[in-house]
């Protein structure tokens, strides 16, 4: 079980939330190349270590928030609303 701290609801079991994946910045749609769009949509770093990711509080406040999570240990540093 991973306990994830929702900034609105407090600590929640990860089964109450949905992992929306690594946080990636959206490229400018007016200037982005096809390669950049593909990278934004499909490619992730997936490191064994600290990663900033987005979670969705599915059964609680129904808000997206970001946390820093160590994918090797599931240690979590902080959370804030997206």
């Amino acid at each position, binding site marked *: 079980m991973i306990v994830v701290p929702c900034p*609105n*609801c407090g600590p929640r*079991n990860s*089964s*109450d939330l949905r992992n929306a994946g690594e946080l990636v910045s959206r490229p400018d749609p007016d200037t982005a190349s096809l390669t950049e769009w593909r990278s934004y949509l499909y490619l992730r770093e997936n490191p064994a270590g600290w990663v900033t990711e987005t979670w969705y509080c*599915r*059964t*609680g*406040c*129904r*808000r997206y928030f970001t946390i820093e999570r160590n994918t090797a240990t599931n240690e979590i540093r902080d959370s804030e609303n997206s």
Partner: protein
Amino acid sequence: MSELDFVSPVASGALSASGGGIALEDLSDRSKVLVRAGRSTAAGTHLKVTYGHSRRRRDGTLICGSRPDEWTLIADPGQGAELLASLPDEGFVSVVDITHGRAMFRLSGPDSVDALAKVCNIDLADDMTPDGAVFSASVAKVTCDLVRSDVADRRTYLISCERSFGRFLFAAIADACAEFGIDVPEDISMH
């Protein structure tokens, strides 16, 4: 606006243990209104409750801060139109009567916390969810909105979910209550 006749998704009446330790009732016919508004709007200022808390208005309406910038108002049956009319709608505000779309149950009694803990993964201790607390959680795998609303010091939870899950959820909670003395009718028994 005229009120439609309400038909509950639950066919069972109130269930209670003979010793009074726990009771489960269907309150699906209560008027329920959902408000989505910024806290700076007239509606947000009028409701005065932050996420996770509730208060009772002078007319008996229970105002629940059910999510950030979202409130649920609960009142006696047939009050939907009055509730809608009682809210200021200036600005970016959405007010919807959800009476017919939500099922709602009342679980009460000293044993209610132990019964609810069997099917809900939230910490139900007094310091985490005191009287007046509002929270959303999985109850028997159904996403529900819960309000701790004690009546005369009797521990009481209002549990609401989407109407289509109502019949299952009532049966699942009744099943969790069985070990505390509730006789579950055969037509809703899960066994």
